[in-house]
């Protein structure tokens, strides 16, 4: 049994200053053996800095770190590893092209005296070690074929083989599919019962409530406190995180004039989605939700021309048949798309805010010879910075230096600049903090008031229920249910049930 009250990690009075910012201000943190603790806070609250100090990546300006009661000074990444502290990142440190077994023995392959690798032994050893942890998997599967949750399991397993007793699970930038979360959490709980402590960093408070007993709240580099999750509800925790009462955004439904701006007519792409048939009205916000891989994202990516379009059926935009082969054409036809991966498709980090905002409308700012009207551009950019409340020191600031929420607003400014008729949003509030989420939803609301038809692809059901007029649930590529949010019977729980395929089974 786990010995109670034995601290594996004690961090005392940690101070860390980066030029211009006090990232951590006299922070204390203690973790008991076998405990699952969450650290929460807004972007920039100091969560990652604290963990980077714990694992020796950064050196604190002040403060002590004790591991199992022993003062460690200085902490280095090597020492952290030796002492059994592991850092599992969202971005996998595994080698994708190699198998699970090869990844487990990476750098220490079991070789014969002749110097050749004994592959059979590698496989059986890997299988044996994993099954000891209760994981029965085909160790010959390639890591690139694993889901995110499976990769995380593997990384935790690797850390455990290296005798880790404290594992930091860094912030999931994407919500995992429900069953994967369950699998991951079950495993974490089982390991914790055996005495392994976990530090879980996440924006997804629902998961925090589900997994952890206690939570440490950081705000602006200071510790707000440690709390048992049973003493809190979600709004209270949000309040602690932001320090101010977060105004809860609830959208007023405005009257729609019933003019269709987008129609899917029996759109099918076999293997991805089938017989998709629905209409989007002017000024309407429709949420499309479903499990990861249900086809919801493929549908909008196909519409925007980022993927080969549907095989049969037709899409009608504003009364005429629409078939965009590439984004350029889609944008010209009045369709704008907010990608799920802001860093991959949304922003050009190395270029200034101004160039990012006008990237899709350069044609409009240029004369016939392609010369840009720079003063017109500057005015446009200032307009949108003002309208969307983008916080940036200047229009020349490189976007990579803005916070996540402001980067997302820059992407919104770019989309809104094209004056779209239809706005496709793929997980618009992913990886931004609570405050920014509300602001972003307000922007979406404003656009809908101007008559833009909006489709939100999301797995954050509460948010969809708050913001959308209707919610469409896709399961296995087919529309299985539609909810009207004006209907009081539409609750997040019911939507969730539909997402998991309840209607399908009946």
């Amino acid at each position, binding site marked *: 049994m786990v010995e109670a009250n034995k601290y594996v990690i004690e961090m005392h009075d940690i101070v860390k200053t*980066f*030029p*211009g*910012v006090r990232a951590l201000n006299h922070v204390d943190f203690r973790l008991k053996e076998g405990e699952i603790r969450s650290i929460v806070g807004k972007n920039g609250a100091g969560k*990652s800095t604290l963990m*980077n100090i714990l*694992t020796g*990546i950064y050196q604190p300006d002040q403060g002590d770190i004790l591991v199992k009661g022993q003062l460690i000074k200085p902490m280095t*990444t090597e020492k*952290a*590893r030796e002492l059994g*502290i*592991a*850092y599992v*990142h969202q*971005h996998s*440190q595994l080698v994708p092209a190699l198998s699970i077994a090869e990844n487990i023995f*990476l*750098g220490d392959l079991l070789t014969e005296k002749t110097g050749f690798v004994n592959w059979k032994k590698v496989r059986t050893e890997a299988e044996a070690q994993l099954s000891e942890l209760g994981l029965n998997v085909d160790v010959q599967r390639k890591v690139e074929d694993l889901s995110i949750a499976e990769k995380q399991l593997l990384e935790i397993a*690797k*850390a455990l083989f*290296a005798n*880790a007793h404290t594992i930091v699970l860094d912030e999931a930038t994407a919500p995992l599919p429900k069953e994967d979360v369950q699998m991951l959490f079950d495993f974490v709980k089982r390991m914790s019962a055996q005495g392994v402590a976990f530090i879980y960093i996440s924006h997804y408070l629902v998961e925090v409530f589900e997994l952890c007993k206690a939570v440490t709240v950081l705000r602006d580099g200071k510790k707000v406190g440690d709390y048992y999750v049973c003493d809190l509800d979600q709004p209270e925790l949000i309040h602690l995180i932001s320090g101010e009462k977060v105004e809860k955004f609830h959208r007023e439904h405005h009257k729609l004039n019933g003019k269709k701006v987008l129609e899917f007519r029996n759109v099918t792409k076999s293997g991805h989605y089938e017989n998709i048939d629905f209409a989007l009205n002017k000024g309407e916000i429709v949420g499309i939700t479903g499990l990861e891989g249900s086809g919801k994202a493929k549908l909008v990516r196909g519409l*925007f021309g*980022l993927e080969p379009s549907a095989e049969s059926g037709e899409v009608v935009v504003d009364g005429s048949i629409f078939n965009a082969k*590439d*984004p*350029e054409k*889609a*944008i*010209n036809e009045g369709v704008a*798309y907010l*990608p799920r991966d802001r860093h*991959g*498709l*949304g*922003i*050009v*980090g*190395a*270029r200034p805010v101004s*160039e990012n905002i*006008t*990237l*899709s409308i*350069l*044609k409009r*700012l*240029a004369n016939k*010879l*392609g*010369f*840009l009207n*720079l003063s017109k551009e500057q005015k446009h950019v200032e307009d949108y910075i003002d309208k969307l409340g983008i916080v940036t020191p200047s229009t020349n600031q490189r976007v*990579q*230096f803005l916070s996540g929420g402001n980067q997302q607003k820059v992407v919104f400014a*770019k989309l809104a600049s094209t004056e779209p008729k239809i706005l496709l949003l793929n997980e618009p509030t992913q990886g931004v903090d609570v405050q920014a989420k509300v602001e972003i939803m307000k922007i979406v609301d404003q656009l809908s008031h101007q008559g833009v038809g909006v489709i939100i692809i999301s797995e954050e059901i509460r948010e969809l229920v708050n913001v959308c007029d209707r919610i469409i649930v896709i399961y296995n590529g087919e529309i299985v249910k539609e909810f009207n949010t004006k209907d009081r019977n539409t609750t997040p729980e019911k939507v969730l049930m539909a997402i998991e395929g309840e209607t399908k089974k009946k």
Partner: protein
Amino acid sequence: MKNRKVIIALLDNLIWPLLIVTIIIFNFASDKFLTTFNVTNILIHAAVLGILTVGQSFTMITGNFDLSAESSLAITALIGAWLILPSGAPNFGGDVFLPVGLAIIALLMVGVIAGWINGFLITKLKMNNFIVTLAMLIVLRGLMLVISEGKTMTGLPDSFKALGHDNLGNIPISVLVMVIVFIIAHIIMQYTQFGRNLYAVGGDPDAALAAGIDPEKRIRQVYLISGFLAALGGLMLAGRTGVIVENMGSGMIFEIQAAAVIGGISLLGGRGTMVGAFGGVLLLSVIDSGLSLMRVSSFWIEVFSGLIILVAMMIDAQKVRYSKIPSAKNETSIKEI
């Protein structure tokens, strides 16, 4: 945070203090350094280098590069001369006797075609840009040997040599052309839709695509530009030296890349300006001239050229380091814990 921005701004503009310090040092080392004669020589050296650096910068800003530029330069000059000159010693031409004007147009076309092939292979067949342009570098150099049979062509007509050889008043035409090319490139990059697209494509091709830009089309276009400018450089170099030798421009690609990178054009793509690249071209030309004036042995000049490339790449690597957001940096800095 603030600090990092200052460091990046410094690294981006490092070329100018470097250039000034270098000039001051050479001026102390040799009293002949800042004479009209020597400055003119520096600029003439900068002319061909500059034109090729502009082409290279276009490709680099889109996140590519064109290693074949030096071979394009050589083979275009060779083909131009071959189309004009009679066969047999000492000309070794092709007995085509094309008028000079047509021959020049033809040689520029050859450069454009070489660029088109590069762009086609990279974007349509999705081949790696390093391998494609490296192969093209070797193929074009080989073709040059096939056509010339390793012989040196001489006796180029004056009209063919004019661009690289003649003066307009006191100023060499080649220098004027180089400056004009830089000004046009600068205007394109800073004030046109095309230039903005190039920065976006190099900064993040996926984001550019999602913003309605066709990254592959832009990449094909910059290779056309690079091929054209390599041919223009070839014409100028042929005019300056008056002969076509089989190793013409050989090894120049390193100088070209070093000039662009030290001038702030990043190998990462999406970063750097033509003004900076111009500074890079001046710096390399100044160093080349200064070392010769100081009678440094050509062996040591080799060593210095290598060091300059190392310094350029080092600056670029630091830029990459400081551009990364801290969390991203952590992810790469720790391997397995």
